[in-house]
């Protein structure tokens, strides 16, 4: 007798789970449209932000699935009225006992006549415990809840054909345990095991070695991004690790029992569990195969989500997946979603097959009645994409690769190898100090690695399915279809034989997939603005309120070390300049390492070098520093951008770890400058210590919060420009982050998050000096001639003092020369470089070196040469570190035994007199990378007090000649007849 589905379900109340999913949405739509007499109760999991009603409206009823119904009803209002009248949404969750229902929900469930359970975690790579809770325990929980409520509605549970496992041959519509190939597994133990694995992994992931690993990984990804961000990233890594391990656990457990993945396994065990614990509830099981887009209902090609074969198809069409395993003659069991919905409705209308309610099984598959061979599917797909190619970003058509149906192992091996290789390359590239366009290489490699990873995931996940050669029997399905009157078949038909695969693949499924994938299907360059232009327009919109800029490599290709090198060498003589530069170069790797570890520590450590530097001199020099160093390395486009923001009325802020006097000349560009500051001592010299926390990492974000609070600015309307992950905190708090010439890590983050990436260049055609060393100053040549005017003018004029300079001209040429002459007159070389280079600027143990007698005697007419340090090296001590060598004025090789051997050394070792034991020049305490060794065993030979020799005199004369004439104290004015005055 034909079953008329609308009539059979009329007046019934149907409880549906999983209605936000692909199948569930189609089911709800069909019930609303084609079964006018029924009422629907939807079980929806409450979202974090939204109530269940909002979630249902947004995620179910707004879907284009309901377009047809809305049109048939004549508009949104009528549709909403229909939904309000016939649909009720209750909050609950199938992964908790009692379904998490409140009283009203329980009442609603109790009042239902049919329960259709289609909630599942269909992701093939879901963690084991989640799959167990949802797929395995879900149906059982429903049955138990119904039992608790004392009702026995017809429970239609949606499962999958793949519960039959990896096997060849017929798979009839019988319960899983009735199959001759069933491996007896106790589902309760599996549940316990899965929960225990989760608990174990959670505990293991918190062990120190693993936490250290996660921290290292977070640091590798984010660099010195500051504590809070690193902590968040570390926690993310831990969670990801636990999830990965659970996925792996699920996959291996499923493979060990002969299922393609944890999804099929948990579904199979779920069927078994339901059979055992259903109580009096009559149960029907519907097992669809691979559900794909609709054949005809509600419209041909309707699909929701993008997780089954679609990613593989699109990857193939984009040329990213050139090999995929599978046997060409194998069956791909695809079934359109509307046929599955039809079958579920037919089962619900028919009621339980067995009078005692024992589960009956209906498989919805095409493999036995209307098979589609894998080879044919590939032909259809490649043929279609040859005719309708996708286009790359340049608007060129993409050729689809030819598949050769290799074995899974081979493809997997290939992909694993390429992924490993790419991961190594990426690691190497990330460790290099690349930025801007160079960092693009790293980003490209990363992109390729991700592609390989994704391809590998597809191969691992879906490969098993393409190789599965089971033929699923559909007798019950055909019987259901046969039981329908012909008029019903249009709406609820579920006979897979109606599918014309050519038409389905070429005209229905592929056009729909391509449309959903949002890929380029038109040739030529895209018209209109590019993404970058759109983002740039947003950034430069008058609605923005604040623009924050980092300095180094964002506005200027320079850093605190180059600024220091320039300032330190500005007042030094050439040999000292070379030495400072050589020292910094030698230290570069350790400085870079320190900078990468912690920017704050680096700044604190590095700024110690300014200790004793005269503050007023540096402030004066910083004006020249801007022209000579900063502007030559500036990015004109970046400076223009700052000014554009200002012109738009945005508040511009410079946030930098550079020192205040270094960035002071940039003041006119910015409304606010947040920078590092150093304290000075009573004599106006820098102490080398910062007055407050340097603005790095998260303190940059705090600085932005402060500014936003002070000026009433909404940071969502702020823009931030920065170049490295150490500025990540700042970038993350604003609404419009911009990565400028990003280093590899930030480039990767910016790509993933869709941030605007700008590459600003230095001025084209100009090559700044390779080394940041201040240029030589002073006279070049002099033309001899009579100059009587100089003496009277000089004699009359008062001595130069800084105050004598006319006001309003703080940075005239005269000032530096004046200061130099003044500072050198006292016989001391000043300046930050001097503090590091000249030996006598550093504290010296008494007696360790003897100061040259009469070093600053006026007789010499020049500042005394610095005390010389000889470093004597004995054979066998060649492997000493570089720094003492650099510090020493002269390295003197000493032959073994020339001044006594080990015995003499031992004799001297016990003495308190430090002269007896000459230690190598100790490294400075502020170089943390180098261990302090207060009593390093004798490596250099005994240093004798220097004696003035002919060679020394020669050298001293040489220094005199090298120096600036103004370095020499002025000769007393020759007695000369005064002018007419």
């Amino acid at each position, binding site marked *: 007798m034909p079953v008329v589905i609308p009539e059979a379900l009329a007046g019934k109340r149907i409880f549906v789970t999983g209605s936000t999913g692909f199948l569930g949405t189609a089911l709800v739509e069909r019930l609303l449209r084609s079964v006018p007499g029924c009422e629907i109760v939807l079980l929806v999991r409450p979202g974090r932000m939204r109530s269940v009603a909002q979630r249902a409206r947004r995620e179910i009823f707004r879907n284009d699935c309901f377009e047809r119904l809305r049109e048939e009803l004549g508009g949104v209002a009528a549709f909403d009225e229909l939904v309000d009248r016939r649909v009720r949404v209750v909050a609950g969750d199938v992964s908790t006992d009692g379904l998490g229902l409140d009283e009203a929900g329980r009442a609603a469930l109790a009042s239902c006549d049919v329960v259709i359970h289609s909630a599942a975690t269909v992701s093939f790579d879901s963690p084991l415990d989640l799959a167990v809770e949802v797929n395995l325990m879900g149906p059982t929980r429903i049955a138990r809840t119904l039992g608790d409520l004392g009702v026995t509605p017809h429970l239609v549970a949606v499962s999958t054909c793949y519960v039959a496992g990896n096997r060849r041959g017929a798979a009839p519509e019988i319960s899983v345990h009735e199959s001759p190939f069933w491996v007896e597994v106790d589902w309760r133990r599996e549940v316990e095991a899965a929960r225990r694995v989760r608990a174990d992994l959670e505990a293991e992931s918190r062990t120190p070695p693993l936490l250290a690993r996660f921290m290292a990984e977070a640091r590798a990804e984010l660099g010195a991004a500051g504590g809070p961000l690193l902590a968040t990233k570390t926690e993310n890594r831990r969670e990801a690790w636990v999830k990965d391990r659970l996925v792996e656990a699920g996959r291996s457990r499923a493979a060990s029992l002969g299922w393609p993945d944890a999804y099929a396994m948990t579904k199979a065990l779920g069927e078994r569990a339901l059979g055992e614990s259903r109580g009096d509830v009559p149960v029907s099981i519907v097992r669809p195969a691979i559900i794909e887009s609709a054949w005809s209902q509600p419209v041909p090609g309707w699909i929701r989500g993008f997780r089954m074969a679609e990613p593989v198809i699109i990857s193939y069409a984009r040329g990213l997946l050139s090999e995929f395993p599978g046997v060409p003659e194998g069956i791909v069991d695809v079934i359109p979603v509307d046929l599955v919905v039809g079958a579920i409705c037919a089962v619900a209308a028919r009621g339980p097959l067995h009078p005692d309610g024992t589960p009956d099984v209906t498989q919805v598959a095409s493999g036995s009645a209307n098979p589609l061979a894998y080879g044919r599917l590939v032909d259809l797909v490649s043929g279609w994409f040859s005719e309708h190619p996708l286009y790359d970003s340049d608007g060129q058509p993409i050729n689809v690769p030819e598949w050769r149906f290799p074995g899974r192992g081979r493809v997997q091996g290939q992909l694993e190898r390429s992924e490993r290789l790419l991961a190594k390359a990426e690691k190497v590239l990330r460790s290099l100090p690349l930025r801007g366009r160079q960092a693009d290489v790293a980003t490209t490699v990363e992109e390729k690695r991700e592609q390989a990873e994704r391809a590998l995931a597809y191969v691992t996940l879906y490969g098993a399915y393409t190789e599965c050669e089971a033929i699923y029997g559909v007798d019950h399905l055909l019987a259901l279809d046969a039981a329908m009157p012909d008029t019903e078949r249009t709406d609820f038909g579920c006979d897979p034989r109606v599918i014309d695969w050519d038409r389905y693949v070429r005209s229905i499924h592929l056009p729909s997939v391509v449309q959903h994938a949002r890929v380029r299907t038109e040739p030529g360059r895209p018209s209109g603005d590019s993404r970058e232009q759109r983002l740039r327009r947003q950034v430069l919109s008058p609605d923005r309120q604040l623009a924050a800029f980092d300095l180094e490599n964002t506005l200027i290709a320079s850093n605190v070390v180059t600024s220091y090198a320039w300032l330190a060498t500005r007042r030094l003589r050439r040999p000292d300049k070379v030495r400072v530069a050589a020292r910094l170069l030698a230290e570069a790797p350790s400085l870079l390492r320190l900078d990468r570890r912690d920017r704050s520590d680096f700044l604190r450590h590095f700024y110690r070098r300014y200790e004793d530097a005269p503050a007023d001199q540096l402030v004066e020099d910083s004006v020249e520093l801007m022209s000579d160093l900063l502007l030559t390395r500036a990015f004109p486009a970046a400076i223009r951008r700052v000014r554009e923001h200002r012109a738009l009325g945005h508040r511009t802020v410079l946030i930098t770890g550079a020192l205040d006097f270094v960035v002071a000349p940039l003041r006119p560009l910015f409304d606010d400058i947040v920078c590092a500051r150093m304290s000075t001592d009573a004599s106006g010299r820098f102490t080398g210590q910062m007055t407050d926390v340097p603005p790095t990492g998260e303190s940059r974000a705090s600085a932005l919060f402060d500014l936003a609070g002070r000026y009433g600015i909404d940071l969502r309307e702020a823009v931030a420009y920065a170049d490295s992950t150490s500025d990540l905190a700042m970038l993350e708090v604003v609404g419009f982050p911009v990565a400028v010439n990003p280093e590899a890590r930030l480039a990767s983050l910016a790509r993933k998050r869709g941030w605007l990436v700008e590459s600003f260049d230095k001025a084209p055609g*100009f090559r700044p000096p390779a080394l940041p060393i201040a240029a030589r100053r002073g006279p*070049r040549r002099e033309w001899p001639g009579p100059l009587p*005017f100089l003496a009277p*003018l000089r004699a009359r004029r008062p001595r130069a003092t800084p105050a004598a300079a006319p006001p309003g*001209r703080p940075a005239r040429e*005269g000032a530096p020369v004046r200061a130099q002459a003044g500072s050198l007159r006292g016989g001391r070389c000043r300046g930050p470089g001097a503090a590091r280079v000249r030996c006598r600027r550093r504290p010296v143990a008494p007696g360790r070196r003897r100061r040259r007698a009469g070093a600053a005697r006026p007789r010499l007419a020049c500042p005394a040469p610095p005390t010389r340090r000889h470093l004597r090296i004995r054979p066998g001590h060649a492997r000493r570190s570089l720094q003492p060598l650099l510090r020493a004025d002269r390295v003197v090789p000493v032959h073994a035994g020339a001044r006594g051997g080990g015995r003499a050394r031992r004799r001297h070792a016990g003495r308190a007199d430090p002269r007896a034991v000459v230690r190598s020049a100790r490294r400075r305490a502020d170089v943390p990378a180098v261990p302090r060794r207060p009593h390093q065993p004798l490596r250099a030979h005994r240093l004798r007090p220097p004696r003035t020799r002919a060679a020394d005199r020669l050298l001293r004369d040489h220094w005199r000649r090298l120096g600036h004439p103004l370095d020499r104290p002025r000769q007393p004015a020759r007695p000369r007849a005064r002018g007419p005055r």
Partner: protein
Amino acid sequence: MPRPGFVLDVDRSTPPILFHSGEGFRLEKLPAERSRVVYPGEPLAALRDVEASIRDALLSPLDSEPLPALLRPGMKLTICFDDISLPLPQMRRPDIRQRIIEAVLDLAAAAGVDDVHLIAALALHRRMTEDELRHAVGDRVYDAFAPQGALYNHDAEDPDGMAHVGTTDQGEPVIINRRAAESDLVVYVNINIVAMDGGWKSTATGLASYESLRHHHNVHAMRHSRSFMDRHASELHHSNWRMGEVLKASGPRIFQIETTLNNDTFGDRGPMSMLQKREWEWSTRDRATFVGMQAGLKRMSMATRRRIFQSWEAPYGVTSVQAGAVDAVHERTIANVHRQQLVPVSGQTDILTLGLPYICPYNVNSIMNPILVMCLGLGYFFNMYRGRPLVREGGVLVMTHPTPWDFHPVHHPSYIDFFEQVLAETTDPVEIEQRYEKSFAEDEWYKHLYRTSYAYHGVHPFYMWYWGAHALQHLSQVIIVGGEPRSVRRLGFRPATTMADALEMASDSVGREPTITHLHNPPLVMADVS
């Protein structure tokens, strides 16, 4: 006796002509029978005893009392001197400015003057660096004055450093350096390398502010200066002379010292000497040097080439020194400039060809950016005429220069923005003046860089563009041979790979058989077109 300049009619036997092309050279064969080349005169004989000439000029000035008579104890004396833009290239030490300044200081010392300031009169140009100042005034003057803050660059944006002297009858305000305005005597030390320099332009422009300058540095003035190398036909100079009247009436007393140099730009021996010889007179050694130089330059980076060329210092000889009242001095100076540079040319031509060298007044120790290429070609070289332009109205200008998209980040920041922002929108001088000039001129950041760094003023690129306004109006098209297409097109010109291509392209405007004139410059030559 040096040979004067002349016009060569090109025939089949004429060797290829030398074209300067930035930091390089081209040899181009011009079409026979319809081309001519205007050659500069050979360097005039230099003064034998420059010191004596200076002394003479100071002690027996034109229309003025001798300098010692103007000096008295307790007075305020300000010595102003031309900046780095003169001469081109820089002259070998000792610079003539140094010689004159030392002579003036001698007299000042003798007179007991002890309030002396030295100011580089650079208007809106970039500040001179210490090295450049040392080169111009000498180390001794520098060391004696700079440390006391008595030798410095003019600062047109110093709110306290400028003084309003008066207004001309046409409403042009005269605002000059306050120290100069309040001095008892201003001694201006000038180098007149071309006829445009000197006269009242020295003080009224060199010491002025933007507010004052903009009344003669604008499109209207430049379009009505035919040419600005001829002060009697130049609106630019008329305005400066009006301002001069105001200065005469209510400004400080000005003692003008003007000097002229000969054409000895590249020397008569040394690696560059063939550049000032006529091509058919090149010796085997010259040819070999040229070939070697070309081969060497080809292998060098642009930066290296720039460094080599910029380091060249010319062995100029001083041909005259005159001092006294501005007008009288300037007339004599101009006569001396013309004596060296002026070459009579009869009639105009369809195409004017120019070989643009590596240097112009605004890229000394710097980079010649595309805007400066335009200014040098269409501004300076195009205007090297008296009477009528060398090229007829509607004619074509063909220049050789690589025109790279290169900029000096310190010296030309506003040029970069002008090129990227303004020229991307329009190349019409009038529109540029109306839409953009004010915003650049009043930009705080450019002012800051002009005052504290070594940047040209924000408005300076606009003046460069106005400098070519007359030529832009006069010509039908401009073609740059060997220019980087991207930057040449940004300028609104057409790039060509070879001279033959350029002449082919020019035929659109001037027909198949145009007449061609090549101005063989540098050394400097000025055409007196009848």
